[in-house]
């Protein structure tokens, strides 16, 4: 099939030597059945993909393998491409039911959604148009699945972001017609639906005069910054994770840590932020600023070598996911930090899921606090000036 052949060429999968160096980094290697090299050898979609659907789904697309590949195989992109070619039959559905996927597909339809923005409340201020927008993403929808079960409200992350921005005098644009960023559809093999989402989002934000898109989610950030460049090349806003934005404002002296004890922290680099975008310093500088300059404690593997939270794109979850979560929580606790901080709502959900499981099983698990960076920052940072929100930045 020419598509697969060109994919192999484009991602250099054709160059894979099966040397096995990737396995030394791959977090799924301990499973015993997952082999990146075996996946990279897929040449025949009809037969070989069908035989490896589990591995294909299980790949975290975290990119750890690429750190070691001597041939420069862009394995993650290869897996993404093969998933788009893979026959849908036999694929395992989302571990949390199909609601999030269904929601994303609904939003990919021709009719723009009219999101309920009631969660913003009266205290926070947003704008209809302006240069700075906050891309909210799935945060309000996660809560439908996880608030009851895990006791977390990811929509608080979005509120925290608006509060921080308001404190800096910025009323961000938040769109009712915002659609899903399409990350999961893109990575799980539905490129057409992703394309529709990207084009519609780009048009909607461009129409509001947005020049800078802020996100609080590593996946939204990487999708907007890297994948929208291809999918919606006509619109090139600046895309920043809020951690980057805050780091710059802290450096500029516009924000200061509130008096009071910040927890000692360690940082979980989300795959999309660390390895995919190379953003590892900004979140650390924010955490250092919160702690009066003390750098966060580091886990044994961090930054571009950090281990994944165990699941990516809500496509696959199994005993390996659990193992990765437990090991990562243990590594975090081993640093002596009080709080494990992440910059991706999915990392937050996955770690808390493992902890919730331990509670359900009534076993003493790893109880280290897990918190989102934006929420922690909103709690600990205050504007250096007393400037009131005055309008668009």
């Amino acid at each position, binding site marked *: 099939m020419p598509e697969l052949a060109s994919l192999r060429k484009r991602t250099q999968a054709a160059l894979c030597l099966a040397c096995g160096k990737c396995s030394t980094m791959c977090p799924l290697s301990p499973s015993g059945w997952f082999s990146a090299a075996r996946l990279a050898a897929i040449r025949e979609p009809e037969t070989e993909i069908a035989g490896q659907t589990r591995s294909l789904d299980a790949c975290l697309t975290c990119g750890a393998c690429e750190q070691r590949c001597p041939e420069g195989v862009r394995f993650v992109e290869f897996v993404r491409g093969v998933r788009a070619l893979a026959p849908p039959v036999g694929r395992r559905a989302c571990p949390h039911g199909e609601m999030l996927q*269904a*929601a994303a597909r609904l939003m990919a339809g021709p009719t723009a959604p009219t999101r309920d923005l009631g969660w913003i409340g009266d205290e926070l201020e947003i704008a209809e148009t302006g240069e700075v927008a906050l891309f909210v993403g799935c945060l309000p929808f996660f809560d*439908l699945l996880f608030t009851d079960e895990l006791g977390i409200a990811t929509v608080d992350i979005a509120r925290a972001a608006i509060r921080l921005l308001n404190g800096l005098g910025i009323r961000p644009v938040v769109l009712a017609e915002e659609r899903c960023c399409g990350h999961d559809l893109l990575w799980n093999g539905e490129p057409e639906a992703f394309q529709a989402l990207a084009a519609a989002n780009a048009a909607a934000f461009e129409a509001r005069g947005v020049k800078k898109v802020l996100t609080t989610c590593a996946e939204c950030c990487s999708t907007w910054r890297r994948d929208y460049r291809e999918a919606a090349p006509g619109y090139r806003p600046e895309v920043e994770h809020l951690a980057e934005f805050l780091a710059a404002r802290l450096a500029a002296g516009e924000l200061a840590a509130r008096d009071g004890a910040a927890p000692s922290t360690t940082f979980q680099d989300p795959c999309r932020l660390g390895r995919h975008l190379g953003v590892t310093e900004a979140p650390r500088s924010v955490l250092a600023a919160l702690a009066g300059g003390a750098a966060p404690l580091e886990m044994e593997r961090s930054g571009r070598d950090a281990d994944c939270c165990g699941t990516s794109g809500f496509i696959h979850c199994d005993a390996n996911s659990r193992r990765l979560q*437990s090991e990562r929580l243990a590594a975090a606790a081993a640093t002596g930090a009080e709080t494990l901080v992440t910059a991706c709502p999915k990392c937050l959900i996955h770690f808390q899921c493992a902890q919730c499981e331990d509670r359900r099983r009534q076993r003493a698990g790893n109880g280290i606090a897990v918190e989102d960076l934006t929420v922690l920052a909103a709690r600990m940072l205050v504007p250096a000036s007393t400037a009131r929100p005055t309008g668009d930045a």
Partner: protein
Amino acid sequence: MSATAGSQARATLTVPGLAAGPFPLREVPPSPCTLACPAGINVKSYVSLVAEGRFAEALEVVRERCPLPGICGRVCHHPCEDACERRPAGGPIAIRALKRFVADLELELPPPEAPDVAPRPERVAIVGSGPAGLAAAWDLARAGFPVTVLEAAAQPGGMLRYGIADYRLPVEVLDYEIDVVRRAGVEIRTGYRVGVDGGLGELLAEGYAAALLAVGAQRGRGLGVPGEEDCPEVEDALAFLRRVNEGDRTPLAGRVVVIGGGSTAIEAARSALRLAAKEVEIVYRRRREEMPADEEEIETAIAEGVAFRFLAAPARIVSEGGRLAGVECLRMELGEPDASGRRRPVPIPGSELFVAADHVFAAVGQEADFGFLPAELAPRLAAGGRLATDPQSTMTPLRGVFAAGDVVTGPATVIEAIAAGHRAAEAIRAFLDGEEPGAARPAAPPPRELEIPSPPPAWAQRRHAATAPIAAGREFDEVERAFSAAEAIAEARRCLRCGPCSECRICAASCGRRHLTIHAGGAGAGSRGWLLRAPERFVASLEAAGAGGACLHRELADELFGDAEAGDQAVALLPTRVAIDEDFCRGCAKCIEVCAFDALSLVDPEAEETTVRLAPARCRGCNLCTAVCPTHALVPTVVAPEWWGVRIEDLYPPLAAAAPGEPRFVVLACQRRAGAVGASLAAAGVAAELVPVRCCGQVDAGMLLEVYRHGAGAVLVAGCPGDACRYGAGADLAARQVERARVLLRNLGGDAGRITADWSPDPEGSLANSGWPHLAVLARGLGARQEGVSDA
């Protein structure tokens, strides 16, 4: 909306690829209770049907193998309950009480009519109208043979009438059930004494092609101790019971002592108590544990005031002044086990004790009375107090003369007599058909791992039927009360449904697409269980899911499906267990929380890495665990991907392709009520695509949103309300998913009203497919909404 529902809707929304093919046959053993029933009643099937409130069908299942359900429902010693896997967990299912419940319901209705069968010319005579004779007569009559039952007594029933008193078995029930046998075409001639009114040889000469001797063991043995013969107050317990049951209610003065430990002893003691005896004591030579009488009977007797003296045996009857004074007994101790496996009582020398008595009833054994046999034949036929028969053919050395029941085996139970009657009837049929008699029962299958965890969790406890105290003036009124319908359903729902299929036949009734047909397989001697006919792809997927199928023999299948096209014969039963893919399990324990049957547990809850394991006997295949499993480690079985429900995506292309104005109303219904929901909608002229799901608890918000996205004008989830869900959490889980889908749609500005749920209670007084009229109203509302929907 279209005026014709169902068919037209299906014509536009067809699930592709349902062509049938040849299907494999597999054999799976029946459940322990079914296997334990001597008469071969499909116990699990009727318990399952009671759990569904399908009482008439339950009774039908019992009658397949037992013409006397009301009688067995009262007096059976229930080996099925002894085999019940629930025994260690809340007590065995009260199976006997369930049988009585369904049998009693029929007393209020007109008796069932005899089925039409092709008549056979060969006449069969049956001597004796006890349970063995009646069962044989029932089977033979239903096979078309003219049957005459000859009964020496004035009324039919044998030991059922004369050995069991009214307070356990009301005579109305006996009369009713004998009447059902009569209606099946059996002629019963009472007052006819074979050997007096006509000899055995004359019967055959008279034109009967075969005869069955089922005369029972009606003569009580004596105590065999000195002083017994010339004391009129020492009486055979059977003779006493016969007198009582013939209506003689002369009060008994003073103290009554009953010797023996079997049912007859208990029966005599309780009857004596009802005849105003001052005190009643049972003297038994072993201990309570060794008593052959049913444990429940013993308990009831104690509750009524019968005293027991164990480890004592009569040595001498003591009379004073021509009147009974008492029994001199010897104390016993238990020695080595005897032939019956029980420890043999051994008298302790010098341990004499005196038990005062005004009446003594001997219940120490029964034997057949061979007075009816011609003198020249008796030595050939009767040996050791029993009739000699060929164990395979049940035929006596006299060609064409068969024997069954206590006269062959010695005193046994009602259900064993019925079983013997079945075997004899089958042997007689084979004889008359000129066949070689075959094995009457299939061999017991190898034991299966049922994995009941120990200790059992605190499950719902067995319900006991209430008992009434002895009422003055109404001493012989029935003691044990029947379950109410609610009690019966609740008790039946405790059933674990061991074995490959719950055999409730609900699948066939509720499969809206009629992919499944079920045939009763109880007719032949070797056949039990149900046949489920399913397209091969279903069978294949069930097999892939690790589920067992079940079947009967191919010949029977061919017979049943004889009118189908060649190669289209399919037999497979629903598997009922979820499968676990341990590689995927992360040990989250969500499934454990949702399982109402404690079928799931963690291998090692303390360990960091663990997986869930299944107790197969407890799993009912409701698949609620699969609905909450975050990793798909739990693989649904009945709802295999191609089955009802999960392959809902098969609806998407036709939904998306439907022209404006075509019906695009999708109903996801609990399989239990899918039939009724479909009927209700059809009656209202609402065209809808009905998708039965095993339990609505499996419905996922994403599934609903996808149906919505693909253009369904409205999606209705029609499930059982919380307290009616057979699987516990189904309604809660489904309600949460429906709410999620609606909230998500509201958050996105969609039309949340197009997704709705209905949790109507079951129609009052019946669980039959009588429907919910309000669904039509609901559907019309949704239909109006659908017509207003623009293509989104």
